């Protein structure tokens, strides 16, 4: 097992390097550049800027010095678009935000999705099943760029319960302001506030929740019809024990392989959620940095997402071995 993990981590390094090289090639192949915009400055000014960011060097030199800085100094360079910030600043500021609402979304998606899926499977072809299937189809059909503004219209403009956007420090803050809803002072210091979190979590988790519910339902149905469950039932074990002790673990295997990339997707945020709720998260930079040709931010985020994907896929494989005794590495 340990040698398996070590091997996988060793493969991660060349994988990331290939990712970097491909991203570099794609980036430089795209027309246009990060500076100038509609009114390109005089050539001398442009030359100064390019010299400052090393863009006057040959591509191969740029790539090598980039990799060197990342590997030896963990320095992702200065942002081209935001002149007063480095990529490390951009990620350090935005990633905790998406990590917060992403982790909560993952939790909500798993808990609600698995419960719905299991309930639908063991009450197959009853009203509960139809309801669960209806909800999940609806949730999957409704894209989050439609749902986000609808949530704001309902909860902010209509009911006035939740703020329409912003982050204001997020979940853990120093103290609640007077009149803050859903904010709880911690007797041991600090405070927890949920009001800015709820709408982004709903918008982000819904479609993941639906997928998880549907995967759980079909895999649960399959497991419930298998021989060892029939045996368990025949032995007269109570239903609850059959489900939680015997059926759930194997039924969750497909859910776990789905969760690897899905959790990465959630904790690195979504451009739709970031834009719709102005959270200041890192999701919006996926798109913005590409449009503004902010090479350094594009690379920084690509590496972040790449590394997280490798990590979570490894985690999934380890979980597999733990759950399924048939799998041995």
């Amino acid at each position: 097992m340990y040698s398996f993990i070590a091997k996988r981590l060793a493969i991660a390094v060349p994988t990331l390097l290939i990712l970097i090289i491909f991203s570099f090639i794609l980036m430089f192949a795209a027309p246009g550049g990060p500076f100038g915009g509609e009114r390109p400055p005089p050539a001398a000014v442009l030359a100064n800027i390019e010299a400052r960011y090393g863009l006057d060097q040959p591509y191969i030199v740029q790539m090598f010095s980039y990799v060197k800085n990342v590997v030896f100094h963990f320095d992702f360079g200065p942002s081209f678009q935001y002149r007063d910030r480095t990529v490390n600043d951009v990620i350090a500021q935005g990633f905790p935000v998406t990590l917060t609402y992403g982790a909560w979304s993952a939790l909500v998606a798993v808990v609600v999705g698995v419960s719905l899926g299991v309930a639908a499977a063991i009450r197959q072809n009853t009203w509960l099943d139809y309801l669960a299937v209806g909800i999940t189809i609806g949730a999957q059909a409704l894209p989050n760029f439609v749902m986000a503004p609808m949530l704001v219209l309902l909860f902010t403009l209509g009911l006035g319960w939740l703020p329409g956007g912003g982050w204001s420090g997020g979940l853990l803050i120093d103290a609640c302001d007077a009149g803050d809803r859903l904010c709880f002072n911690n007797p041991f210091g600090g405070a927890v506030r949920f009001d800015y979190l709820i709408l982004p979590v709903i918008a982000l988790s819904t479609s993941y929740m639906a997928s998880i519910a549907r995967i759980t339902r079909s895999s649960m149905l399959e497991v419930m019809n298998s021989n060892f469950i029939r045996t368990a039932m025949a032995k007269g074990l109570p239903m609850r024990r059959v489900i939680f002790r015997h059926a759930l673990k194997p039924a969750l295997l497909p859910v776990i392989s789905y969760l690897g990339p899905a959790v990465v997707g959630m904790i690195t945020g979504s451009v739709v959620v970031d834009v719709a709720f102005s959270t200041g998260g890192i999701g919006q930079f996926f798109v913005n940095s590409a449009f503004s040709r902010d090479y350094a931010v594009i690379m920084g985020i690509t590496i972040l997402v790449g590394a997280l994907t490798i990590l979570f896929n490894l985690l999934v494989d380890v979980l597999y071995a733990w759950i399924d005794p048939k799998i041995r590495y």
Partner: protein
Amino acid sequence: MTFKTKLLASTAALLIATGGAVLADGHATHPDTGVALASDQSFTYSVLDDFPSIDPALVEDVEGASVARDLFEGLMTEDATGTVQPGVATGFEVSEDGLTYTFTLRENAKWSNGDPVVAGDFVYGLQRAANPETASEYAWYLEVMGVENAAAVTAGEMPLDALGISAPDDFTVVYKIDAPRPYFPQMTTFPTTFPQHRATIEAHGDEWTRAENMVSNGAYVLSDYVPAEKLVRSRNAMYWDNDNTIIEEITALIINDSNQALTRYLAGEIDVVMDVPAGQFPRLNTEYPGEALSLPSSCTYYYQFNQSDSGPEALKDVRVRQALSLAVNRDIITDNVLAGGQRPSWTLTHWAIAGWEQPEIAAASMTQDERNAMAVELMAEAGYGDDNPLTVEIVYNTSDSHQSVAVAVGQMWKQTLGVDVTLANQEWATFLDTRGEQNYEVARSGWCADYNEPSTYTDLLTSGSAYNDGKYIDADIDALAQEAKFAEDAMPLYREMEQIASDNAYFLPIYHYASVRMIAPDMENWPTENLLQNWYSKDLYISASE
């Protein structure tokens, strides 16, 4: 936190000490208008994109410039109509040849850390903007100002002290420029010229613009900046005119989606929305009268014809270009397609530019039927018709509103002239390459004024302009531009340049921009007549609601 509290306390103490606030029924009143002031003098506004930089030497966008104008103060500043007012300088003198400007600074101007603002800070600021090491994209502004040796210093060919700015003593700043520019004092209200605090910048490097490091000389200081989320500025107790400043705190929220910003305005979370989708103006104007404002914004929307070697033969024929221009019904585009208070345009120069009078352009006073008839005739003369239809491709950067305009223009050309039009949209950076390398036939363009004088537009008409992507050459326009530089009254020359450009249809002006804002009813003094859309929080206030 403690710093902020201290600051608020000291501000309050100052207000009480000077007796600047008159309390009546628990409300202070505005010293000039006598309007009762709200007890909470803070407001929130939304901007569409995060600020690329708030360093005055690097600022490159409209919203970043607004932040810089609150945090810093230049030699001159503006009132609500855009008229030049004393800033850190109490006034200036111009030499007889118009090439030397001598500004006298007030002695009570201070930085937020208490240091006096001296002439050397202005010299340092300008030199830093020009310095090749700073690599400011806006270094070109110094060339537009005509500051002596600006181009050479930026190119690294001359030392920094060769730049045409000097400080003979602590309270005198002398600018030397290369040609007379009556509008020069107005250019000193631009952030690139603002003073900068050398000790702070040298101590903190690129991180000097962080809230905890920044030292500024404007009416406000930076108190919080969470990138991609919000920027907060609060009162600078050291500001020389602090007693007459009313707004306490300003929060800029970065909201990438203008519809979302509008919803949050309606929910009462925001007081001013900067970029309302233009198409929503008619509806908002009916539903929220007095809150939706359409203000002239000094930009012009036009199409360029590729007249370079790579361009199609047809567009090198003036009759074809004229016909294409005439056949565009600008009224339909401004009134029906955009409907946000834009105005039809026949010149590049924006109608609201100070002192501008449009030249006599025949087409402008015709009816659209007359224009269409003339266009059909010109097209036939040029040899295009049903048996030999012209084909043209319009390329524009991806955006709903550019697409609507292109669809409308294409339809007008098709219906009136039988032209086969194809539309192509490209992502922004790709589009700029396409246009800049003349890989197009007709391309969408826009230009915004840098200062309130026609040459900010007419400079583009010259053959040598870097923004002449149509690559036409007209010796008469170039000669007039040269003459205008030194002319006593350049206005007739500017008009003649526009006239020539229009006669030859070198490009196709479509409309003059307007920008639509939502402004809460209790927000007072928001400038509606500043063509460059500049606003200063120190001139605003919030009235008490009844």
